Every structure is written in C-alpha cells, then in structure tokens.
C-alpha cells in the first residue's frame, strides 16, 4: 500500500471508501486500547499454545525460541491469556509500570 491511513487525504479516498487492497485492516493498531499488558516468565512455559488459542484478537505469535508472545501492536490487554495459562507464565501489569 502506497500510503497508510494517516497519510491519506480526502482526494485519495476511493469511491464509497472501497478498500481495493486486501489486508489493510492489519494497519489498525488496537494496542493503543490497552491499560494492562502481558509479561512472561518463559522458564515456566511448556509451549502448549493455550494462550494463542484463547486470544480473541489472534495476536499471539510464536517467537524465534518457540515461546508464545502477544504482538503488542494489536494486544488489547484483556488478560484472557493470563487467566487461561496452565503454568502461570503470564502476569498482567499496568501499562506505564
């Protein structure tokens, strides 16, 4: 995509604000909604992937070491992953702390 949403002028708007390129919803940063963020103690992680299955945002990805981690660009801080994690890897902390 040539321009991000923040760079588009009104003249750039396609008729009816139709999106002609697939996948531009991925630009939408839902991470700014967050008041708490997940933190991880990977020493307890068994890589079961439950946090990924339960994440309503679909923002949990495996990092290069195979551990599951939320992409903070999208993570809304709901805390479901922390609640569902069997081995208590995830702790929610207040943003700004």
């Amino acid at each position, binding site marked *: 995509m040539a321009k991000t*949403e923040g760079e588009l002028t*009104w003249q750039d*708007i396609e008729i*009816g*604000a*139709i*999106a*002609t390129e*697939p996948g531009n919803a991925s630009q939408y940063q839902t991470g700014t909604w967050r008041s708490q963020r997940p933190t991880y103690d990977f020493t307890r992680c068994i890589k079961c992937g439950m946090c990924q299955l339960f994440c309503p945002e679909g923002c949990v990805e495996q990092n290069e070491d195979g551990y599951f981690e939320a992409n903070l660009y999208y993570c809304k801080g709901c805390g479901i992953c922390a609640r569902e994690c069997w081995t208590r890897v995830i702790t929610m902390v207040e943003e700004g702390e």
Partner: protein
Amino acid sequence: MGVRKGVEVSIAIGDVVKLANADVIAAYPITPQTHIVEHLAELVADGELDAEFIPVESEHSAMSACLGSAAAGARTFTASAGQGLELMHEVLYVASSMQLPIVMAVANRALSSPLSVWGDHSDMMAVRDTGWIQIVTENGQEVIDNIICAFRIAEDKQVLLPVMVHLDGFHLTHVIEPIIFPEQSEVDQFLPPNQYPLPLDPDRPVAMGDFGPPIIYSETKWAQEVRLRASKKVILDCWQEFGKAFQRHYSPVESYHSEGAKVLLFTMGSFSETAMEAIDKMRGEGKDIGLIRLRLWRPFPFAELRRAVRDADVLITLDRAISFGGPGGAVCSEIKAALYNEAKKPKIVSFVGGLGGRDITVDGFEEIVNRGIEIAEKGSQNEFEIFGVRE
C-alpha cells in the same frame, strides 16, 4: 417520438422503470406507493421486464437488498413512502456513503401519529441529511422524465450517488394523467448501461462498507460532501441533454411569472400547480406576484435560488412539514440560511400547511399571499404561521 397515453402515475412509474431496463427491484409495499411495487412485480412475473424482483419483509431489508444489488453493478430500483422511508433510514446513509447508484421513487406521505396515509413532506424532510440526491416533481410527466434522468445521474461516474425522485402521495401517485412515454430506443440512447467501476467480483475482490476509525472518517465524509455538491453539474447537464432529446426542460429552481415580481410565493411539489392557478388569478387582478418552485432539494441549489429571489421585496414560503420546536419549515429555514449573507434579499414570511393530505385550494393560496404581505408590512412575533388550522 413517444406515445401519449392516459395512465395512473404509479403504473407509469413501473412502465418507465421497465423502459430503463432495471436489473433488480427490491421493495416493500406501503400506501401510497403500493401500485408502483405491484405493477413492477407484475411486469417481472409476466416476463415483460427481465429483472430480479426481491420481495422483502420490510423497508429496512428492501434498502439493504438494494445495497447488495447496486454493489454487484446491477441497475437497482426501489420505492417507498412515509413510515417505510423512516424504517430504512439508517440504510439510506449506507447507500450514499458507499456511493451506490440506487434510484428510489418516494411517494411523499405524512408520518405517524396520528396514523396518516395521506401526503405531506415530513418523510422527505426527515431524510434530507442522508446524502441522497433529491429531485421533487409536480406532475406525472415530471416523475417519468426524472426517473429516467435519475438513473443517468446516479450511475454517472462523476456522481455514483443514490437518487430519490419525490412525488406527492395520492395527489400524484393515484391520479390518471396523459403521459408521454419515450420509445425504448430513445431511452436506450439517453441512458447508457450501468457500469459501476468497482463492482463485487470474485476475480477482483474489494472490501465495501469498511470500518473507518477516527484517522480516516473525516476524510471519507468530506469526499462524500464534495461529491454530492459536484453532482449538481452532472444534474444540470443531464437535464439539458434531456431537454434536447425530449423537448421537456427542467432546472433546479423553476419560476412562474417571477421575473421582476415584487412579491414571490415559494412552493415545492404537486401543490405548485394549484399555486400557479392562484398566481394567474391574482395577476389577472393586477397584483405584482410570481411563483418560485424548488425542483432540486439536494444538493441545494444556492446560486440559482439567490438569483431567483434577490430582486423581490417579499418572499412567502409554504412548507408541507413542521420542524417541531424549530424554525417551522425546513425549506424556509434553508432559504433564509442561503440568503443571510446577501446584501440584497427579500423579507421572508414562512407558512406551514397542507399537512397529512389537507388540500390547499386556489383561494387558500390567495389567503396565504395576502396574509404574507400583511406580515411582511407589519411584522410578526412568530417564526412561522400554520395555514388552515381551525381555531
């Protein structure tokens, strides 16, 4: 040349939608629009019109089905009135914002309660901010002509906006008039096939009606506003071309003996024809009076209106809907707004009348004019006066 035949205006609408070769009709019947939908259903069922007729369970669904149809690139028609138009209200905004060229005949009807199936302009005023082009007609011929024009305007690539053609419930929908129908070949020549530039197509997928966060919403709304205002040029061109092809001429603000007249009466819709009779009578008695009628309600024709009224001393307006607790009549308040910054402008006197099917006769218009002149001379404490209410 076309064929002149005596026909009920609602039936004529069905026939002209057939001439326009509509692909999809999705509509729910409601008085006084019912005969339009019935006749279209008949034309499709009898195989006279090769179109999909989608019977829906409500007007909300009717307009929603029209969205899908227009998005697929099909020539789409619907019709509604009063409560039905209100039920589809939220979808009207979607149609204009998504720039889907739907054409709708609106058989203007009063809004409940008390329940009234009869005509006034309450429904038309309630949808004035929905982003549709709104054309107002005075007789059956104008309805037919403007439905043909509406398809051409809506589908023009510089426009791509939905269009409402307003006709007064019963006063127009249920009268039998001699109407000139153009030949099929003439309509085909005037109305090119609909070619929506970005239709739903599995080979070229697009996303329509997306989510628009604060970072983009204002840009989309301004683009929509600029487009609606710019549509006026295409509307004017279309009417000019129509005039050349069919010798019937339309303009955003129509006049009747208004040139140089010091007192002007202002009307909209079918009552204008009765008002003309009143103007003839009063002019015959030596009164210096003319008539201005609004044909294009949206986009509002600011320049044409200012030109039409600037030399008059008094402008007496008639609205057929109340803006409750507000300035009285929506049309009058917009005229006032259009003239506020003008150095030279008439005194404006606002009347509301003709509500819920109540007629205004020639004598009635004469009374309105006389009372209007009296108020213009003496002044009034009220925002507007209601006409014809029993004390």
